[in-house]
């Protein structure tokens, strides 16, 4: 089908109304599988399809909304058995109707959430959609609809683009707060799906046309793609399940959206051919009013968009260069460490986070994917994906939820040819470095010339200038003093001449100089006044972040100094006067009171005069023992136990840092693998156990949640682990626990401890565990028994 031609020929394109509502009107019970009707009642489906064509639908949806592998399993069918039949039915409806129409392969949400919320991986989701798209190749176009998870919509859209040449329409479902249930905002939807090459985007389901007006208004202002609106017939009554907006009102409410710039309209739940007929009639003689808009430069996660209309801080700390502790975290696959680096920078004022996990000896691709998933699971700050390997970038761009920045491309042919196609395909922003085969040009003109070359090549790929961020490169001032001004001058010219954003890593400037902070801050301020948009810097250094905020104030960006005052105007919060001053406090006191920061500070101080292991064995462990004993006696309760464990964790972090700085490895009392078993996603209990075990000096390999039994076995063998801990919360997931134990027994000699809300000692024995741990404290006792210390 020639979608562009259809759009050009018609002022408005009409879609169909609801399928489910029509089926229930025909007697289908709620909860019954509607795709089976393609096989059992094809004539009913055909008549519904035809009903919509006759009512005026230009594109109608085949009855394939839930025809995915996962949902069809319940009825014992496959997409290949259902989808081609549904398309045949649609073609029969087309052939017998009195007017021309096109049929769309209808793809709804899988019914399972993707990680980190659910257990479905991006690749699995992609594969499920791919199967549908291949089975549906006979359709005229593809519709991806009722999506609430931007990442799921992305998986479907990528599957469509990579496995079919058909036009793809994508609609998502927004609530009154203009977000989907997964938190996706309209800005993120528009820039992400637009960037990935959707042919039209829009909104369907959830609410009626009245409630959706503001969401449609917003979407129309954010995209140059044709906008689709397919609302419900109002809201359903809980008793009758009838919807409260009738066809005439529905059509008038849709008509009122014409000035917003809508192009493609239809109805969702509760609508019928009468609604479409009324809408077509109401739109007669109306002109399309969509206008071409200048879109702002921006990046996003699924739930937060950062418009680069003023300097935005890119946090540089997720990067192992020159950081021993970070390298150790990468080697140990310690994602919590990386997440903490993210949180710290966000709290300090970072608006975008650079993620670089390249380290010789680790699988950078796997690490990058894990890091992106982990960081996106705990915050909504957009990311800048930093790698020099195109395969790593490609893999990262697939799983990234939103529109990231790619860091980086440069003027070398090899780089241009491998990175720019990725940027174009995934619709991301990109950092362009002003260097090429011959290195960094000495002159301003040389750097601008490379920037121009990058821009020209990007133009050929259709990458808009707003998505290009040129880095004129900071050189070390102590080595090349004249270079600082050249960098800034090149930056100014690029920004003015090329219409790009500018980006600069600022910390390098002061290498080898005293008082680096002063040099960095001054250089940053100089660059900001010449048009630096994206400083890559350490936001944890207060004077750097405050320089950006002060600039935003002085440049009249931060109106009424709101942001500045919010950050610096308040009185320093009067910390509740501690009963004991830090200098008089013992580590034990700080631990029992849950004073994390004090405990960390005391630990750091103790390290100046004491051996690390002395602190661990002489203070931390005895204090934990005492807390554990009090817990067992019922003197204190779980929250206090966890509180002390959490404080101890911060002390150990200080010690770990110290040891890695001083080149000494920690002494581990033994390795333990722990996880929440397959099928289960509740991991708070497991995480508490992990912290306690680590407190006692064990190396814990945490495989996370919903863990495949085979991975547990493989890890246990690989690290020759003596003790494995398994957690499960529900009766339904004990199966996963039992399987894991069985597989471990067959492959690796070790002790197994199990825990979780529904477990009992009896049941633990029955499924073959060696130990039942009733709480986190007991898991430590078990470890002591197994490792003999």
């Amino acid at each position, binding site marked *: 089908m020639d979608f562009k031609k259809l759009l050009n020929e018609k002022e408005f394109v009409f879609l169909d109304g609801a399928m489910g509502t029509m089926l229930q009107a025909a007697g289908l019970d709620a909860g019954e599988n509607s795709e089976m009707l393609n096989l059992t009642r094809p004539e009913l489906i055909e008549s519904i399809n035809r009903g919509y064509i006759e009512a005026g639908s230009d594109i109608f949806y085949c009855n394939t909304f839930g025809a995915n592998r996962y949902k069809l399993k319940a009825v014992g069918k496959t997409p290949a058995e259902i989808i081609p039949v549904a398309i045949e039915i649609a073609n029969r409806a087309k052939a017998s109707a009195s007017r021309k129409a096109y049929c769309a392969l209808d793809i709804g949400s899988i019914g399972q959430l993707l990680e980190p919320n659910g257990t479905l991986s991006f690749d699995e989701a992609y594969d499920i959609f791919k199967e549908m798209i291949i089975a549906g190749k006979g359709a005229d176009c593809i519709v991806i609809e009722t999506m609430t998870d931007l990442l799921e919509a992305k998986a479907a859209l990528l599957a469509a683009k990579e496995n079919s040449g058909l036009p793809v329409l994508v609609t998502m479902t927004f609530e009154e707060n203009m977000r989907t249930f997964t938190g996706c905002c309209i800005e993120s939807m528009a820039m992400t799906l637009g960037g990935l090459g959707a042919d039209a985007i829009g909104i369907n389901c959830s609410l009626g046309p009245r409630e959706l007006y503001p969401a449609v208004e917003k979407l129309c202002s954010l995209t140059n793609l044709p906008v689709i609106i397919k609302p419900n017939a109002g809201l359903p009554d809980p008793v009758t399940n009838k919807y409260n907006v009738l066809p005439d009102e529905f059509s008038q409410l849709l008509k009122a959206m014409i000035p917003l710039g809508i192009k493609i309209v239809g109805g969702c739940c509760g609508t019928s051919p009468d609604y479409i007929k009324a809408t077509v009639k109401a739109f007669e003689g109306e002109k399309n009013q969509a206008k071409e808009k200048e879109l702002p430069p921006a990046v996003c996660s699924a739930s937060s968009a950062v418009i680069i209309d003023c300097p935005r801080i890119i946090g540089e700390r997720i990067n192992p260069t020159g950081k021993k502790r970070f390298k150790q975290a990468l080697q140990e696959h310690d994602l919590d460490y990386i997440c903490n680096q993210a949180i710290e920078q966000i709290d300090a004022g970072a608006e975008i986070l650079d993620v670089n996990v390249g380290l010789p000896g680790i699988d950078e691709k796997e690490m990058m994917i894990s890091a992106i998933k982990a960081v996106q699971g705990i915050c909504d700050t957009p990311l800048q994906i930093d790698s020099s390997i195109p395969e790593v970038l490609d893999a990262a761009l697939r799983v990234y939820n939103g529109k990231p920045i790619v860091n980086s491309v440069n003027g070398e042919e090899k780089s241009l040819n491998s990175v720019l196609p990725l940027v174009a395909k995934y619709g991301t922003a990109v950092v362009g470095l002003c260097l090429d085969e011959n290195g960094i040009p000495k002159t301003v003109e040389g750097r601008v010339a490379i920037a121009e070359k990058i821009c020209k090549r990007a133009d050929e790929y259709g990458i808009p200038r707003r998505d290009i961020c040129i880095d004129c490169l900071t050189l070390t001032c102590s080595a090349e003093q004249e270079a600082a001004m050249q960098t800034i001058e090149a930056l100014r010219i690029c920004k003015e001449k090329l219409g790009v954003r500018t980006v600069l890593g600022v910390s390098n400037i002061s290498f080898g100089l005293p008082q680096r902070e002063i040099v960095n801050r001054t250089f940053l301020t100089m660059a900001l006044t010449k048009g630096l948009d994206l400083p890559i810097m350490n936001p944890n250094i207060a004077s750097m972040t405050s320089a950006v905020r002060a600039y935003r104030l002085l440049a009249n960006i931060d109106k009424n100094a709101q942001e500045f005052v919010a950050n610096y105007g308040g009185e320093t919060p009067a910390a509740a006067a501690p009963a004991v001053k830090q200098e008089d406090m013992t580590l034990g006191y700080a631990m029992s009171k849950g004073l994390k920061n004090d405990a960390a500070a005391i630990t750091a101080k103790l390290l100046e005069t004491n051996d690390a292991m002395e602190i661990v064995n002489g203070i931390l462990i005895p204090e934990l023992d005492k807390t554990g004993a009090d817990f067992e006696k019922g003197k204190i309760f779980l929250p206090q136990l*966890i509180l002390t464990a959490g404080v101890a964790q911060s002390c150990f972090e200080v010690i770990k840092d110290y040891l890695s700085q001083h080149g000494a490895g920690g002494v581990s009392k033994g390795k333990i693998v722990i996880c929440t078993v397959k099928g289960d996603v509740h991991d708070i209990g497991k995480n508490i156990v992990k912290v306690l075990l680590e407190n006692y000096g064990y190396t814990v390999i945490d495989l996370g949640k919903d863990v495949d039994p085979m991975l547990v076995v493989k890890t246990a063998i690989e690290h020759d682990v003596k003790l494995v801990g398994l957690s499960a919360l529900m009766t339904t997931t004990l199966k996963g626990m039992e399987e894991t134990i069985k597989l471990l027994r067959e492959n690796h000699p070790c002790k197994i401890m199990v825990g979780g809300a529904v477990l009992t000692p009896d049941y633990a024995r029955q499924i073959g565990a060696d130990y039942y741990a009733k709480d986190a404290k007991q898991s430590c006792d078990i470890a002591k028994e197994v490792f003999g210390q």
Partner: protein
Amino acid sequence: MEIKIDIDEAVRYMGYRGVPDEEQLQKIKKQAELLEKSLKPAVIYRIFDLDESFYGVKLKLTNITFEGEDIKRHLAGCDKCVLLCATAGLKADELIRRAQTEDISLGFITDCLASAAVEAVCNELERELKDKLPDRHMTWRFSPGYGDLPLSVQPQILDVLNAQKRAGVSCLESLLMVPSKSVTAIIGLSREPVENKRRGCSICNMAGRCDFRKRGIHC
């Protein structure tokens, strides 16, 4: 919708006997405020006519038959029921993940507060239902997994309510719901007064191994 988390209830979930010390309580209250501000809870329900059969109770116009003796007892004397699904939303899961990365004890507190939040959503709906259905008596909330009502009915309930579309709630093959702080429940409606006490221990799947009972108290 706005929610007010019952701090006392959350503190009980945490396993405190009595009141936490002032510092802890402040930390809990501060986190509760963050949740109240950030969460996007949702609740949906439909009212169905009931048909009792030998196997259990059928919801008319759906493919659901609730099996077991306990649900029969629960709905005895009721001609209709409210089928509901409530959730604290995905933001709760994100905040729990984030809190436990920063500080495990804050993670634990957040988890318990989020449980109390979804309870608050349900309580709010019950109040609303009482206003909407003044001539009806209501039973307490019975959920899949209680007594002999199998958990396997969970996906059907979510399907019939169209919960994924309307509340963003789905369930894994292991029948765990996502977002994790979500509940489904059945409230019987009767024209005659019905027993409406809290659920007892006899039908609880934690009976015999629950921490509350060991301490001589009820949840």
